[in-house]
């Protein structure tokens, strides 16, 4: 039985019914129309409306956004030292501790086998500097190098991931044709040999990936790179150089849904800033709210997220 809402809306009732009584209702009983979003007074963009459901009296989920102004050595190369500092700052704030190694020791033990699930989409991969920064702190926390793996597509087949006892999730934030956005929730999709089975209904049930045996209960940390996110994509590769920008940030949290929710707000704010009008994402990112309300993976409601913002403030957008 799911969490019942304190603030009731027609749409929320539908979502609740959908998650609890799906087999008993006609498909058209679950319809959410454009008009439902119009009825939400806070409607600014479809995703924001989807996310904007308030639950009262629930503990807040902490997410840390760290930005630095000068991190780029060239168009594609980051300053490794600064990236390391950003990660350190983020985990210290996340765990309210004064040492980044101690912070990592709170989530992994020396005898853990750690899989760092990255993203190697060739248009916008996870920066190597960020992967190295994570790996460094995992080593500092006492994990043997041979017990650490960093992989994307091949992760599912690699012994270090198959035998892993802890996972760290890292990838860039980007708009995505079929899921609305690609963030931390989506990053584990390659752990399933048939990723396309999550595609129906705009990838609404992506959170199911987190229930696979290779993933379940292992995730320790989520790091969403918003160093140079993509806020609008086009063409077969859903990529357009005009629509990436140097936001110079990373979002870190234990809750993948909350991390993605913050990332989505940045993407939507950027679209509004550039397009000068509310422009829906190609697909509504329903998988984020679904991960919360249907699959109970985490918290999507911005009102229930404690967002700690550190560092450079110019152009922060949220």
């Amino acid at each position, binding site marked *: 039985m799911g969490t019942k809402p304190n603030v009731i809306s027609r749409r929320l009732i539908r979502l609740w019914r959908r998650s609890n009584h799906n087999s008993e209702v006609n498909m058209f009983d679950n319809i*959410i129309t454009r*008009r439902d979003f119009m009825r939400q007074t806070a409607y600014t963009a479809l995703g924001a409306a989807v996310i904007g459901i308030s639950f009262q009296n629930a503990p807040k989920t902490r997410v840390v956004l760290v930005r630095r102004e000068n991190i780029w050595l060239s168009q594609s190369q980051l300053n490794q030292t600064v990236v390391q500092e950003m990660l350190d700052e983020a985990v210290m704030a996340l765990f309210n501790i004064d040492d980044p190694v101690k912070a990592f020791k709170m989530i992994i033990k020396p005898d853990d086998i750690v899989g760092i699930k990255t993203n190697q989409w060739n248009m916008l991969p996870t920066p190597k500097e960020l992967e190295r920064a994570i790996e460094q702190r995992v080593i500092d926390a006492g994990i043997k190098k041979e017990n650490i793996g960093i992989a994307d597509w091949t992760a599912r087949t690699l012994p270090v991931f198959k035998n892993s006892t802890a996972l760290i999730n890292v990838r860039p934030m980007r708009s995505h044709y079929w899921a609305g956005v690609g963030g931390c929730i989506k990053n584990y999709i390659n752990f399933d040999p048939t990723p396309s089975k999550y595609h129906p209904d705009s990838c609404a049930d992506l959170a199911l990936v987190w229930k696979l045996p290779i993933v379940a209960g292992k995730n320790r940390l989520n790091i969403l790179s918003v160093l140079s996110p993509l806020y609008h994509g086009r063409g*077969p590769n859903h990529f357009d150089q005009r629509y990436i920008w140097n936001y110079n940030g990373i979002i870190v949290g234990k809750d993948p849904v909350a991390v993605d929710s913050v990332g989505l707000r940045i993407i939507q704010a950027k679209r509004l800033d550039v397009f000068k009008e509310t422009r829906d994402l190609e697909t509504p990112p329903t998988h984020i709210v679904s991960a919360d309300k249907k699959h109970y993976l985490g918290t999507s409601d911005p009102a229930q997220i404690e967002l700690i913002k550190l560092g450079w403030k110019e152009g922060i957008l949220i």
Partner: protein
Amino acid sequence: MQKTIINLTLCTLFITCSGEKMNKLFTSLPEHVQNWKKTDDGKLYNRETLYNYIDGGAELYLTFRFIEVFSQRYSNTANPQNEIILDIFDMGTSADAFGIFTCEREDEEVGIGQDSEYGGGLLRFWKDNYFVAITALCPEQIAKSVMLELGKKIANAITTTGSLPQLVDSLPTEGLNKKKIRYFHTIQPLNTRYFVASENILNLNKNTDCIFAQYLRNEEKGYLLLVNYLNEQMAVSAYTTFITHYAPEAQKTGFAQLENKRWVGAKLIDRRIIIVFEAPDQKWAQNLMLSAGG
């Protein structure tokens, strides 16, 4: 039974011919263009394997009559890390090649194929059954010239042209924003341009032909959707579902004012549904509908 066999035979013949044309096209690709050269032999993906090539976006192509795509990389001979990707999609029909082209249109025409656009390191055009995209994997100013030249060579190699979907002829011309015409078959491409509902309340499927266009009349914007169903019975069913779930207030008159103060209007004519969204007032919606034959 006999009809089914004939249909299957025609279908096989069509795919074979189409495959031969595609094969001829990609084997004739130039080895070099300016100081760029092929980096590999290219790869072919069909409806079953497209997921292996396009992350997420494959779904869009599969909503059309897509048959296969040939993907070929070229790299700069002086700086091999500078690459471009050429994708030639056989969309099955010229209407669907036009359709996939319209789905993401937003840039300036560059005079390649039957219609084209270039912007942000992405060249897109269509000709006959083919939709072609060339994407720069390096700063666009380095690759723009070679992308345009390669695009022209491919357009010239496609010696035939194709027809536009018949529904295009039904669009009223007054106030039509030609860059905002979208042609498709299913609910997903409609929802990506204009979210209507989470469920398929218009009963769209691979056999429905849909056109969605933006209009600017009297300085007010609105949208026109035309849907052709296979038969009148399907159209009636879809019309009923749409009105019931989207605008029950429009059951008597066909028009309703919505929460955002804009108007929606819907009309059923034989096997076609005409819908006007976001009209500033009822008269505006009625006039647009009337000029679309409603």
